C-alpha cells in the first residue's frame, strides 16, 4: 500500500509534478495546513511572500507572461480569495495562464457563513477559465493536473482551485495524475483543409493585404512561422499592445500599433486595405473604434484558437480555427511569393506625418519639462531594446507601449483588456522571477504606483531587480486627458498631492533618484540600469501632457486626432 500523506502534502507534490518552481502567496487560517506542508518544500517551491493578495496574482501574471509557464498564486479563504479577483479577471481578459489556489473552510462548514467563508467558485466562475472546489484529499492530484492543463492549453487563462480545509488535512494515498485530455474541451482543433486553401486564395488575390497581430502569436510561440508567412507574401502588419513583441519593432513590415492610441498608418490603412488578416487578436473596441465603419471595404480572415471570437465584434469572411503555429505555416505553403511595394510605401506618408506632428515632439523635446515619451525611449535604448517592458495603466502605459522598442519575444507585460491600475509593480516583480536574466523596466504613474505600493516590501525582501520608472505628473493623467478633451477641462478629482517617493523607496532600502532636468536624464538612466537590484527613478513629468494621436471613443478608427 502506498504511503498516506495529507491533502496539503499531496498539493505540494502535485505542484512539483507540474514543474512549478515559484509561488506567489500570502498565508491565513484556511490555508495554514498547506503552508505547513510548504515549509518542507522550500528547496523546490520558491514561495514569494507578497504584501497583498492582489500582488500575488499580478506577480503570477507577470511571471507567466515573460516565461510562458503557468503562474501560480496561493492565498487564504474569504478576503484572501476576494483580493485575487481583479487578477483573475485580468488574466482572463489577457489570456494569461495562471492557477490560483485559495483556502476554503471545511466542507462541514460550507454554506453556514463560517468565518472567512466566501463562495469562491460562484464568484470566480464567470471570470475564470475554470473554477473548482477540492472537497476531498483524493481529488487533489486530479484537480491540480486538470487545472494546469486547462490553464496552459488552447487559449490560456486563469484557473481557480478552492481548497477546502478538510481536503488539506485529510489523508490520501498520493499518485500523480496526468490530465492531458478532456472530452468536453478540445484545445487542438483539427485543421480544415478547405479553409486553409480558401485563405491562401484570398491572400493570393489580394493586392492590398494587411495583417493584424495580437498576443495569440506570442502565446503560440509562432514568431518564426508568422514572420516567414508575412515575408513570403510581403504583407505589412500592425500589432495590438499585447502583441507588441510578436515581431521586432524594426521589422520593415511592422507598421506600428493598432487602435485608439496606436499609429496613424496602420489605423488609416485598416480602412483602405482589401484584405485584413487577423492573427490571434480579438477586435477589441479599443482597436476597432466605430464598428460600423471598420474595414468595411475589406474581406477579413480571422485566425484564432478561440472559436467564440469569430464574428463576435467584427463580421468576418473566413474563420481559421486553430493554433496559428500550425495554421499559418499551412497557409504559408499555399501562398504565392508576392510583392506589394507600392501598397506598403503607402504607409510612409502617414508615418512621416505622425513623426513630424507627434513623435518627434514626444521623444526629442527641446525645452520644457520632461515628457513620458522621451524617458521611455531613452530607457529602451539604454537597455539595447532588449528589456522586458512592464507598465501600469494610464498615460504611462500608452507612452511606454508607443515608444519602447522590442527585439526579443515575451517582452510586454501590460494590463490590456482589464486596464488594471496597480498591476505594474507586482507584475514586474513576477517578471524578474520569470526572466531572471533580463532587465525588467516598469513604467508607472503616481496613481498606479500607490495602488500596489506595499509591494515595495516584497521587492525589498527579495531584492527583486525591478527598475521602477515613476512618471510623476501629479495627476491621474489619463483621466485628466479625457477631462481636458471631452469634459471641458473640469478636473474632477484628478490632481493628486504626492508623497516623497524617494523617501519612501529609501525607507524600503531601495536606491532612488529624482530627475527634473533633461540634462540629467541619460546619466540617471545609466545609473539605474547599472545599479544591481531594484531602483526607483522618479521623473518629474510635464503635468498636462496628452497621449496622441488619439481616436476619440466611438469615432472611426482612421479619424485620429494628431493634436488637441
Amino acid at each position, binding site marked *: 500500500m502506498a504511503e498516506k500523506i495529507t491533502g496539503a502534502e499531496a498539493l505540494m507534490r502535485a505542484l512539483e509534478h507540474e514543474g512549478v518552481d515559484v509561488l506567489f502567496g500570502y498565508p491565513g487560517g484556511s490555508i495554514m495546513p498547506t503552508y505547513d506542508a510548504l515549509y518542507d518544500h522550500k528547496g523546490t517551491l520558491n514561495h514569494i511572500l507578497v504584501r497583498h493578495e492582489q500582488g500575488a496574482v499580478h506577480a503570477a501574471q507577470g511571471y507567466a507572461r515573460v516565461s510562458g509557464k503557468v503562474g501560480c498564486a496561493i492565498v487564504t479563504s474569504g478576503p484572501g480569495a476576494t483580493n485575487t479577483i481583479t487578477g483573475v479577471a485580468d488574466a482572463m481578459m489577457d489570456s494569461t495562464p495562471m492557477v490560483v489556489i485559495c483556502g476554503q473552510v471545511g466542507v462541514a462548514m460550507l454554506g453556514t457563513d463560517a468565518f472567512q467563508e466566501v463562495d469562491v*467558485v*460562484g464568484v470566480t*466562475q*464567470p471570470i475564470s*477559465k*475554470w*473554477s473548482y*472546489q477540492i472537497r476531498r484529499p483524493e481529488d487533489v492530484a486530479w484537480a491540480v493536473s486538470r487545472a494546469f492543463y*486547462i490553464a496552459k492549453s488552447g487559449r490560456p487563462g486563469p484557473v481557480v482551485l478552492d481548497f477546502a480545509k478538510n481536503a488539506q488535512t485529510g489523508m490520501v494515498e498520493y499518485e500523480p495524475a496526468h490530465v*492531458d*485530455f*478532456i*472530452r*468536453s*474541451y*478540445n484545445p487542438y482543433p483539427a485543421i480544415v483543409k478547405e479553409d486553409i486553401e480558401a485563405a491562401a486564395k484570398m491572400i493570393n488575390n489580394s493586392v492590398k493585404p494587411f495583417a493584424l497581430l495580437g498576443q495569440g502569436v506570442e502565446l503560440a510561440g509562432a514568431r518564426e512561422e508568422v514572420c516567414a508567412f508575412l515575408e513570403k507574401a510581403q504583407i505589412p502588419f500592425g500589432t495590438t499592445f499585447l502583441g507588441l513583441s510578436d515581431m521586432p519593432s524594426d521589422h520593415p513590415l511592422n507598421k506600428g500599433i493598432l487602435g485608439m492610441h496606436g499609429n496613424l498608418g496602420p489605423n488609416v490603412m485598416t480602412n483602405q486595405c482589401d484584405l485584413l488578416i487577423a492573427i490571434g487578436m480579438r477586435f477589441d*473596441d479599443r482597436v476597432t473604434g*466605430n*464598428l*460600423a*465603419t471598420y474595414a*468595411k*471595404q475589406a*474581406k477579413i480572415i480571422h485566425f484564432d484558437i*478561440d*472559436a*467564440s471570437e*469569430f*464574428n*463576435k*465584434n*467584427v*463580421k468576418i*469572411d473566413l474563420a481559421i480555427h486553430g493554433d496559428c503555429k500550425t495554421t499559418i505555416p499551412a497557409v504559408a505553403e499555399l501562398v504565392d511569393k508576392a510583392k506589394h511595394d507600392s501598397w506598403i510605401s503607402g504607409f510612409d506618408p502617414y508615418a512621416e506625418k505622425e513623426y513630424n506632428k507627434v513623435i518627434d515632439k514626444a521623444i526629442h523635446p527641446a525645452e520644457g519639462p520632461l515628457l513620458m515619451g522621451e524617458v521611455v525611449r531613452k530607457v529602451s535604448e539604454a537597455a539595447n531594446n532588449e528589456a522586458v517592458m512592464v507598465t501600469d495603466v494610464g498615460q504611462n502605459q500608452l507612452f511606454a507601449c508607443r515608444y519602447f522598442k522590442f527585439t526579443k519575444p515575451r517582452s510586454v507585460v501590460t494590463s490590456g483588456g482589464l486596464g488594471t491600475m496597480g498591476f505594474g509593480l507586482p507584475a514586474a516583480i513576477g517578471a524578474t522571477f520569470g526572466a531572471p536574466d533580463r532587465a525588467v523596466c516598469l513604467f508607472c504613474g503616481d496613481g498606479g504606483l500607490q495602488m500596489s505600493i506595499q509591494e515595495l516590501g516584497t521587492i525589498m525582501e527579495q531584492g527583486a531587480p525591478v527598475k521602477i520608472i515613476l512618471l510623476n505628473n501629479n495627476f491621474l493623467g489619463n483621466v485628466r486627458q479625457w477631462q481636458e478633451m471631452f469634459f471641458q477641462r473640469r478636473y474632477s478629482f484628478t490632481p493628486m498631492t504626492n508623497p516623497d517617493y524617494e523617501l519612501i523607496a529609501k525607507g524600503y532600502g531601495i536606491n532612488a533618484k529624482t530627475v527634473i532636468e533633461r540634462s540629467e536624464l541619460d546619466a540617471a538612466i545609466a545609473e539605474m540600469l547599472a545599479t544591481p537590484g531594484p531602483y526607483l527613478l522618479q521623473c518629474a513629468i510635464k503635468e498636462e501632457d496628452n497621449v496622441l494621436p488619439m481616436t476619440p471613443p466611438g469615432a472611426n478608427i482612421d479619424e485620429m486626432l494628431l493634436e488637441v
Partner: protein
Amino acid sequence: MKRTFGGQCGECTSCGKCDRVLNRGNAAGEETIIDNPIMEQDNSTKLYTFLIYSENIAGLLSQISAVFTRRQVNIESLNVCASSTPGVHKYTVTSYCTLEMATMLKKQMEKKIDVLQANFFTDEEIFINETCLLKISTPIMLENHNVSRIVRMFNARIVEVNPTYATIEKTGITSDILALFNELNAIEGCVLQFVRSGRIAVTKSKIEKLDNYLAEREKQRINK
C-alpha cells in the same frame, strides 16, 4: 438594397439588437444588406430552443444561465435532466434572439470547459413538448358547465377530483397550454393553482450530433 455597410448598426459595440445581415461577396462580388431594424417589427428575433449537453459537474447550470444573462437574453424556459448518455446532462433552454446572437451564445457556452455541445433549433427542427398542471375548484366546476367542456375540448386529463378541488394535466405545445389556462382562468374563482413545465425537445434530424462528437473525441483520445 445595396450598400457597403453591414452587420453592425454602429450604435452599440455588441450587435444582435437588429438583424441587418451583411451578405459579403455574393457571386457578383457585391455586398448586399438586408435592413430590418427591430423597431419596425420584431421579426428579427425568433424563439430558439438550445439543446446543451454537459459533463455532470457541479455548477454548470449557473455557468450556462450566466452566458444568457451577460448577453442580455432572457431565458423563457429551462429544463435540466440526465440525458440518454450516462454521465451527460441535458439542458433545454428557450430564448428569443437573433440568429447571430444564438450563434454567439452557442459558442460562448461551448467555451465552458465542461460543456460538451450546445446547439440551437427553430421549432420546425424539433419535436417539442411541455406539460402543465391546473388545480381548479370543484364547486365552480360543478356550477359552470363550461369548465368540463373546456377540459374536454383541450384533451386535458383529470388526475384527481375531491369535493374541494380537481387536478388537471395537459401535455402539448405552449400555445395550447396557455389557451387552456386562459379559458379556465376567465371563469371567476376556477383556477386555484397553475404550473407549466419548461419545454423539452428532441431533434427531428436523423443525425445524433452528440453521439458523433463523443465518438470522434474517443477516437482522438485513443490516438493521442
